């Protein structure tokens, strides 16, 4: 699964640690999400969508 996390985060000038804190996960997890090493659970994907104020399908794609 692909995602636009890195781009969205860079647009807001957030660090991985900033995003991790907002999502309630570790920085390692944010890094793994951005590099495609980990696909989030549905609850975490919804949380990511809320944090970026965008629909899930505009952040994640197959």
């Amino acid at each position, binding site marked *: 699964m692909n995602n636009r996390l*890195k781009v969205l985060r860079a647009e807001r000038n957030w660090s991985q640690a900033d995003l991790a804190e907002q999502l309630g*996960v570790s920085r390692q997890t944010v890094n793994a999400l951005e590099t495609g*090493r980990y696909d989030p659970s549905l609850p975490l994907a919804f949380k990511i969508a809320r944090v970026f104020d965008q629909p899930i399908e505009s952040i994640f794609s197959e």
Partner: protein
Amino acid sequence: MTASPPTPGLPAPRSPAVRITGFLVLGLLGGAAGMGIATLSKEMNSGWEDTVALGAGAAPLALAAIIALGLITKRGADVMRGCGGLQVLVMLLAGAMMLLPMVGARIAAPGVVMAALAVLLVVQAGANLLLWRRADEMLRRIMAETATLAFWTLQSALFLYAAAERLGLIDGLSAWGMMGILMGVYFVASAIAAARRGIH
């Protein structure tokens, strides 16, 4: 040749000199640990089971030291709040529990050592449970994948070993020897599960 600019939001990449120094330090520590285990094993004049157990006891102690070092330096921010200290505690207890049956018998009566081991096991189980509760979903996934991989590997190996023993092809194996092998397989499984998520 110019270095690529750092990616926004990511920690600045370590320079080659720092990396090489880190590898050298880790290599020296590994060599010293290996020599220590070999020397201790020779002094104890025990079988391969104790040698494997010494390694399985030293490995989590070394990992605990590395994690603690990471917590002290800037990389402490990498893990979930409240998880780093627990990881260190779990590793320290795992190391102590593997070493105590061999070392403890020289210090105290076997019954006392066994009672201490039971207490340590309860404390470690509690710390592991707390770690699971505090972990985020990726760390939980890594823990679950480690357990799955270790179980699959060990049950396959145990089946083959048990069949060979039943057929009279090989000698029996002590529970202590099996425990050392189990811990070794578990560490390899955890390293694989963590590396798949980019944690080295």
